[in-house]
């Protein structure tokens, strides 16, 4: 059992606020990702959960017990670091056994458990080596083995894949997911890689400038971003934004327009709008929601500036009167550089954000 509650957590370093009034409930056995750009406070939050940094104010509770003042060695959490932090002066075996020794586990049991974990992580051939004799992927496995062997109440992972090469990263993602399923423990995972967070998490907490932006399942985060920051941060290539004006015409039909584009909002979605038109907004459209084939009612016209074929997809960088944006299309579309084309947006997928606050105006709960 490991339910983690973070209540009104705040952390300041001098004048800098790293974490700003963060409240978060993490369920037992959940895979929760803290996602955000560097400096958003995600690692600080993880360190506070581990007890490695102290909170300026607020509380951290494990299963309802306040652990805010508890030293890290008494929290029974395990942590995987971005740099792996393997002890360079110890052999792999001792690296894995270290935590058990610190807890006074009997020698025979240590041997048994290390052997078991080493076999499971397929590093049993490496136990006599020193960390510097290992490859990046092997170090990663040792770092994981070191945490698993202790059977801790939860796992904290601080960008564990960011030092691996692209291929290894993909396979380790799968491995981590499998581990999570097998171990049946709470995982709190920190990353700046939005794709990683979408693939692995049960829920994602998006942080920016120390503030929680949105907490939700990967689908929610992707399809119903709470604000322009989340919308722009999650998704690759990122969402296109257009500065435009939201108007309501005589027939009660909502439209978003600027000099180049004009797009209608589906009436069923527009009923969530509780604003006074006209309003300055940001129109957000993901590249896959920009339609350039068989356009019936064009939102505007643009010319192709760059073609980026990606095998299964073709990404086009389009330019409409100084505004550039990206569209995803099928690779056999056959577009040429310089070609002029009509485009439209998938009306039921576009997002509207208030220009000032960035708040999503069409989100169900907004």
């Amino acid at each position, binding site marked *: 059992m490991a339910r983690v509650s973070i209540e009104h957590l*705040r952390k*300041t370093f001098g*004048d800098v*606020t790293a974490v700003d009034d963060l409240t978060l409930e993490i369920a037992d056995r959940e895979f929760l990702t803290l996602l955000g750009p560097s400096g958003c406070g995600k690692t600080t939050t993880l360190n506070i959960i581990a007890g490695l940094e*102290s909170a*300026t*104010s607020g509380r951290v509770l494990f299963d309802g017990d306040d652990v805010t003042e508890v030293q890290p060695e008494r929290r029974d959490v395990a942590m995987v670091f971005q740099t792996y932090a393997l002890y360079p002066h110890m052999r792999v075996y001792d690296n894995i056994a270290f935590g058990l020794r610190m807890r006074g586990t009997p020698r025979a049991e240590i041997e048994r458990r290390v052997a078991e974990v080493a076999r499971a992580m397929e590093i049993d051939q490496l136990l006599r080596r020193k960390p510097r004799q290992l490859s990046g992927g092997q170090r990663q496995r040792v770092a994981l083995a070191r945490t698993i062997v202790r059977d801790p109440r939860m796992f904290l992972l601080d960008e564990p894949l960011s030092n691996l090469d692209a291929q290894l990263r993909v396979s380790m993602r799968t491995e981590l997911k499998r581990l999570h399923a097998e171990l049946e423990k709470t995982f709190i995972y920190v990353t700046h890689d939005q794709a990683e967070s979408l693939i692995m998490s049960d829920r994602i907490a998006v942080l920016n400038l120390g503030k929680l932006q949105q907490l939700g399942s990967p689908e929610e985060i992707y399809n119903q971003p709470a604000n322009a920051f989340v919308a722009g941060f999650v998704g690759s290539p990122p969402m296109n934004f257009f500065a435009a004006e939201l108007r309501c015409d005589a027939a009660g039909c909502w439209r978003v327009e600027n000099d180049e584009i004009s797009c209608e909002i589906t009436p069923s979605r527009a009923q969530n709008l509780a604003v006074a038109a006209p309003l300055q907004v940001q129109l957000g459209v993901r590249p896959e929601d920009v339609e350039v084939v068989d356009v019936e009612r064009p939102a505007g016209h643009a010319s192709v500036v760059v073609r980026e074929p990606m095998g299964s997809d073709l990404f086009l960088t389009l330019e409409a009167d100084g505004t550039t944006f990206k569209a995803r299309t099928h690779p056999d579309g056959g577009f040429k550089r310089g070609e002029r084309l009509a485009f439209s947006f998938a009306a039921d997928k576009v997002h509207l954000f208030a220009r000032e606050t960035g708040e999503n105006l069409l989100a169900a709960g907004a």
Partner: protein
Amino acid sequence: MASTALERRRQRQESLFAYLLNAPAVVLILVLVLYPVGMSLWLSMHRYNLRRPETFEFIGLGNFVEVLSSYEFWHALQVTLYFTALSVGLVIAVALGIALLFNESFSGRGIVRSLLLIPWAVPGVVNGLMWVGLLGEYGPFNEMLGDCVELFNRATGAQVDYMGMASPVVALNAAIAAHVWRSVPFACIIFLAALQAIPAEQYRAARVDGASSWNRFRYITLPWLLHPILIVSIYETMNGFRTFDLIFTLTGGGPGDATYVIAWQTYKEAFGRLDFGRANAYSYLIAFITMGLAVVYVRLLYRRGTVQG
């Protein structure tokens, strides 16, 4: 954002922990450096001679006036300045030359670099004894110098007498040579470390840009070496000022008072004449000069942003 009481308490605990870890070193320095520095000032204002221990009388700046108006002080200062200035210049020139040379690639580089450690590991006392032999009546350097003077005499028809270490000029410069020999390796190792820290890409980029080897030295190597040169010169200045052991065994201050450096003069004043009051005035003057240098040291380092707080 105001910090909470909890955080302030934690901060205090952190500070306490840090001070606790520093306590032994700080206590040692307080008792054996800072307290003596203060006591030195106090003693320097008293008539205090161990030969007459019953007289301990406050005379204000009397000792300083006496010292500053004495021939011995100015002579010692002059000798020290000459010794230090020449040593610093020579150490930097020789060490820089050797470092640039040993930074080239050639076979046996590792061996000659380790040989550098020999002079460094020689204690000053032994260095003095060594050079007594080297420059003594039958020493090779003495003979070389003698031969040189003879050649000079024959070539110019001059009548220069070579008296070896009995000559004040030879003795003082010999002391400098011995001091420089022992000091070069340290500076050299620093320069080598600095040279190795220069990213190779900078040289490649400069070659691509068509810079000549002189220009590469002038615009890449030299700027990277400025900081180490600064550090070495300050370090060596202080080293020059405190030279004592070498003088003790090599010349004993002689011939006459030719090699009376200020450290030697102070030692003589204190443990020769047992005039602790006056010797302390000397001490304070030395401390004053070197503390001034230390301030310059810290200032210069700070301006270059190398001291991390």
